[in-house]
């Protein structure tokens, strides 16, 4: 046949028009499984340890005891809160990589209220005040690049990134102002004795309030993006600004409003980090979670309910990594390698979900 003269490439890649939901999740599950196998081989090759025992240790590190489970849940909620904050901005194709700064802005305000008003205002109004103030601080931190983008079309990626560094410097300033004792460069635990401004234990659980706040935000954001007019506007602006204009959507207004919301939620994350977890403020209060949340937001395709799963996976990997290092006396870096491999596979699975790969010789079959 004459067709045989044309040399077929070994692999051909084509975009999938659509994929069933179950099939896409099957790909993801397969990727997770494959990554565990690859990690197992590497663990055994490097350390000679039984990979199953290592995975068991990871599980025990995250859920081994009731308290560990709660710490895992607390960290999950933290990551989820930031991801939820990023969701509207990313859906609008506004690359807010400034969550770190927005968290710190909220954190500083919360810490300030704890330090200056922690022992004079009753707990419930104080917490409400801290919530609002930190949301406002985060909103301002998000608003600045939002306005610049909306009005002058300034590059939001660079702008939000630079705002992070400013926030870190501002935090350093306040840490130096509040440091205890002088010169130690740490604020220490704020209101250690009075516990002023700390999240109260609910039903004996000190992290339950974190869960309530974050899950409420998650559900509200889901409804907002999916069912509200504003959520629809965000989606349209994200797809095409020109379409949005054609549909008489005020793009500037949407950009600014969305960044206010995005920043405010990240600011609340700072409030939770300070009042609900650390009870201190430092330049590591955000601790890179603002960047990890970008992965969460992307992997979940800005669906805040899926974010619960993805945040859970990442936090689980992190906790597991620490336990491996401790239990098997391995360096932390081995466990970080595992996390890296698993993430690589999961991100890689998105490729196979979006594209179809055909090999030479199977074209007839595939072409049916």
């Amino acid at each position, binding site marked *: 046949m004459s067709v045989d003269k044309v040399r077929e490439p070994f692999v051909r890649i084509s975009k999938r028009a659509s994929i069933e939901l179950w099939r896409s999740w099957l790909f993801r599950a397969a990727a997770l499984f494959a990554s565990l196998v690859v990690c197992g081989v590497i663990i055994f090759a490097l350390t000679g340890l039984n990979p199953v025992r290592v995975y068991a240790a990871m*599980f025990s590190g995250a859920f081994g005891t009731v308290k560990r489970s709660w710490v895992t849940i607390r960290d999950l909620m933290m990551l989820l809160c930031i991801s939820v904050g990023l969701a509207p901005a990313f859906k609008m194709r506004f690359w807010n990589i400034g969550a770190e700064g927005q968290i710190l802005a909220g954190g500083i305000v919360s810490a300030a209220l704890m330090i200056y008003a922690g022992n004079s205002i009753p707990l419930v109004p104080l917490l409400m005040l801290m919530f609002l103030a930190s949301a406002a601080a985060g909103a301002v931190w998000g608003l600045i690049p939002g306005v610049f983008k909306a009005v002058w079309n300034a590059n939001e990626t660079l702008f939000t990134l630079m705002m992070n560094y400013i926030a870190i410097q501002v935090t350093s300033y306040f840490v130096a102002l509040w440091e205890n004792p002088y010169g*130690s460069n740490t604020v220490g635990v704020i209101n*250690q004795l009075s516990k002023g401004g700390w999240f109260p234990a609910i039903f004996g659980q000190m992290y339950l309030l974190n869960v309530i706040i974050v899950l409420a935000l998650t559900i509200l954001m889901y409804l907002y993006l999916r069912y509200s007019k504003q959520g629809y506007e965000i989606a349209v602006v994200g797809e095409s600004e020109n379409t949005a204009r054609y549909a008489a959507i005020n793009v500037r207004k949407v950009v600014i409003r969305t960044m206010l919301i995005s920043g405010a939620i990240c600011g609340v994350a700072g409030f939770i980090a300070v009042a609900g977890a650390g009870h201190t403020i430092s330049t590591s209060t955000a601790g890179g979670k603002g960047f990890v949340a970008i992965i969460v937001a992307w992997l979940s395709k800005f669906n805040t309910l899926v974010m619960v799963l993805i945040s859970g996976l990442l936090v689980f990997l992190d906790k597991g990594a620490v336990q491996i290092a401790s239990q098997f006396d391995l360096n*932390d870096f081995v466990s970080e390698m595992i996390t890296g491999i698993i993430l690589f596979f999961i991100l890689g699975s998105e490729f196979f979900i979006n594209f179809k790969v055909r090999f030479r010789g199977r074209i007839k079959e595939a072409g049916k």
Partner: protein
Amino acid sequence: MKKLLAIVIALAMVLALATACDAGSGGAKTLKIGIILVHDENTGYDAAHINGIKAAVAAVGIDEKTQIFWKYNVEENEKCYDAAIDLVEQGCSYIFSDSYGHQDHMLRAAEENPEVVFVSMTGDKGALSGLPNYKNAFPHTFESRYVSGVVAGMKLKQLVDENKVLDSNKNPDGTIKIGYVGAFPYAEVVSGYTAFYLGVKSIVDNVQMDVTYTNSWYDPTAEAEAANSLVSRGCIIISQHADSTGAPSACEALLNAGTTVYCVGYNVDMIPVAPNAALTSAQNNWSVYYTYAFNCAVKGEEIVTDWSEGYATGTNMISELGASCAPGTAEKVAEVEAGIKDGSVQVFDTAKFTVDGQQLTTYLAIDTDGDYKGDTGDPIENGIFYESKLRSAPYFALRIDGITELNAQ
């Protein structure tokens, strides 16, 4: 969605089963000890702790594999609290943390777990917290700093005698410049650099010291830059209270390029990275404390709230002298060390330094209630400022004449 949930749950159950099988290990000895470290063996400070713990484990007869639980790279925030609680959950009845910034978080864990003993090494809230299960410990690092200062002083004297001290190494008033790379501007560092300075001064009287802060315990680049800038200001000896080899490496490069500069390290023996420039390093032998504390743990005895010992019990020392040390250094060091042991040499002898031109007669060391009376007394007795006596953590935070902080906050 349901399918995924089913997969996740199935996976979780399998792993839970595997974990359950894994538990139940542990020998006849039931004592478990948790260790929280701010970094890992790659930093000199933590390496010194790790070595101390391993030596103590061998001396006391504890099985490291089953009885010691390590937590590496624990940040000085709620992660420390999490780590402490996690160690409690794993059955540890004694928990040690090695960095100053851990202490508030250790204190919180101690409040919540009165049955577990928490030791915050280098912390200073032990006695004042009033918690019976919260302890502090700190060696007499100022003693080894003083001795390392003597080593530097001997070198400086040799340089003076050989006319290697240039005019650029001197201030307009004729004092010779030396430098110090500090981490943070608080008592632990101030006490250390003052002891070093007084050690140098005991050999060469006309010295003046510049101090630069890096605001980090471990930052090789910043420490190297700080050393470079101090040397460019004319400092001829560089010492440090920071945990990396940054400053000695910088000094070695400068020395090999023709600038006369020598350095004194901390914790780590710097001779491998600076064979020509390094004179010695001030060191702590943490095994003395860990052996004491582990013995208490094994026997069920109470650990003292504030533990601080020095040369007298082998807790402090300096590392091996480098090839560049002046002749006669070893003899002088032996003499000073003997003096420290028998008390005839006192590091903070108020006759040997002044503050704002005045000799010190009284000092408010620890005053948490703000009544301008020392909570636990005055550290100065008979003209001697006793460091680490009122509590284990250093409280000498005076800026004495002859020392200039270049970038204090």
